[in-house]
């Protein structure tokens, strides 16, 4: 009894320490837990593994060889596939990657700054109409983005801007959810006393925001950036309905277009597979690089 109390007290005082109650769990429940997680690891990773392996094969080998393992000529075949991918149709695939980087990268960056400013103002200033603005933004979160795609198309065709970069880029800048997150974070992480002190030091409001407050809000800003980056990178309906010229396509729409031509042009199959692999690498890279931030910031939206 006293031993149990002692260990409990010890672990309560040092929450980060190694778990002292380990031995109490039966081997049964440990192996059951590991088994569940192991089986689902296979479920989550096998398709990606298959994509990786298949991208090292020629069209005939994809069906003719062991599907989940490499062939002897994997490396040269993979390089040849990559070469074909980036030269096919005047190297349009490279253009698609650049477009996606522009739409998602620059769009999310600007969108994050815009959302952060608005959320910050809603959290740290008192002004008339503040609650009204926040409620409008909140209802914006619940409006499905795809419901906007068609009216956006109609509006952009009124001003003759469909089938341009702007038609996809500009609407992507708006993230009501980003404003919502920014407000919650700014309220929690930027002390009002600090802003008062900055005012006394003669710092302007805008300068205080960019030099002091953004630093305190950094984890939230990374989270907002990632959310928006993924949302734009994955957005399908807007480019599908806006763009006709394939030079303007983001990589997802481009691969979709190739994939729907496979029945007429079978050699596209290999390019679609290699292209799919190449197109998911930037996202996985971004996530790994920013992992420290999003793993702590993701839960913020649910904090009341």
């Amino acid at each position, binding site marked *: 009894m006293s031993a149990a109390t002692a260990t409990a007290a010890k672990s309560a005082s040092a929450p980060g320490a190694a778990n002292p109650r380990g031995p109490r769990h039966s081997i049964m429940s440990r192996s059951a837990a590991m088994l569940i997680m192991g089986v689902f*690891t296979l*479920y989550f990773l096998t398709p990606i593994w298959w994509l990786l392996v298949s991208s090292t094969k020629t069209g005939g080998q994809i069906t003719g060889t062991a599907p989940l393992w490499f062939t002897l000529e994997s490396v040269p075949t993979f390089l040849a596939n990559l070469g074909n991918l980036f030269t096919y149709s005047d190297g349009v695939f490279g253009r698609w990657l650049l477009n996606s980087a522009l739409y998602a990268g620059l769009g999310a960056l600007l969108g994050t700054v815009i959302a952060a400013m*608005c959320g910050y103002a809603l959290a740290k200033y008192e002004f008339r109409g503040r609650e009204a603005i926040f409620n409008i933004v909140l209802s914006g979160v*619940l409006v499905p983005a795809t*419901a906007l795609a*068609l009216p*956006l198309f109609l509006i952009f065709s009124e001003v003759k801007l469909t089938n341009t970069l702007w038609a996809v880029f500009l609407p992507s800048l708006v993230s009501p959810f980003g404003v919502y997150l920014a407000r919650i974070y700014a309220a929690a992480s930027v002390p009002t006393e600090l802003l008062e002190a900055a005012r006394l030091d003669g710092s302007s409001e805008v300068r205080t925001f960019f030099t002091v407050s953004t630093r305190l809000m950094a984890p939230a800003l990374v989270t907002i950036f990632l959310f928006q980056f993924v949302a734009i990178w994955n957005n399908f309906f807007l480019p599908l309905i806006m763009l006709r010229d394939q030079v303007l396509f983001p990589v*997802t729409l481009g*691969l979709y277009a190739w994939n729907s031509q496979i029945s007429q042009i079978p050699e596209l199959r290999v390019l679609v597979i290699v292209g799919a692999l190449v197109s998911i690498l930037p996202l996985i890279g971004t996530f790994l690089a920013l992992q420290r931030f999003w793993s702590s910031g993701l839960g913020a939206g649910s904090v009341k």
Partner: protein
Amino acid sequence: MMKVTRSTTAPAPALGAPKTRKAKTTGAQRRAVFLFVAPFGVLFLAFYAVPIIFAVVQSLLTVERKGTFGPPRQVFGGFVQYQQVFQNTEFWESVGRVLLFGAVQVPVMLGLALLFALLLDSPLLRGKKFFRLAFFAPYAVPGVIAAIMWGFLYSPSLSPFDAVTSEVNFLSAELVLWAIANIVTWVYVGYNMLIIYSSLLAIPTEIYEAARLDGASNLQIAWRIKIPLVVPAIILTGVFSIIGTLQLLAEPQTLRSFSSAISSTFTPNLAVYTTASVPNYNLAAAFSVVLALATFVLSFVFLKATQRKVSQ
């Protein structure tokens, strides 16, 4: 108290302003608020508010021709388009299809996400970091790409699992909806798991210690302490999942090159796209309005219903 007096009186002599304001916000602050809010405000108006109004206006118009070959002209048609929406059986079939999809897929996905989050938070696992990354990795795969990958995996002639796919045709009319459900689940379980997991991490460990002293088992702690405390996170993921389900487009549209069982009006958004390509913009706009309203109402009702349950 000190701070308030200082901030209101200090700027006055410095600026030499003729009158001292009692209000908390100064002119400079008001200008700053405007600068902060205006960019988002303008973009929100242009690309959220105006399109919604525009869609509503379009949905109230109808195309009229003078004679059979006269030039088409848009005139006010009242609720003509909405009448057509309600008579359009294909559209309502597509709504029914995604509702059925959501009723099965959302609970399964969130159930799995909760299970994984609880396991990650339990002392039972080793290699938590690996599992967290492995389960989250599919989230980096866009819907179109995920559908292409799974399309290959499902198709009887290309699949590495041909022992299964030659027996069960996942791309048949009966199963293709669940084939799509599997793709969506594959992509989003890890994401939802992380949201729930990070709110589990926010619970102070002292609570568990107290429960353990009272003799609570791991299962009881999970069921009676952890799950009730992460309900807000589950509600958030639930709302996003509902919105996502009604918006289904990329996965079914991409799978159409693998399966003939997916019609051009398989989901509401596909119906919008198909109708807009005709082109019948007025009817497509009415579809969009109905869909947006339905999404809004459904997620709002879900929020309210779960909030009531929580407060009880």
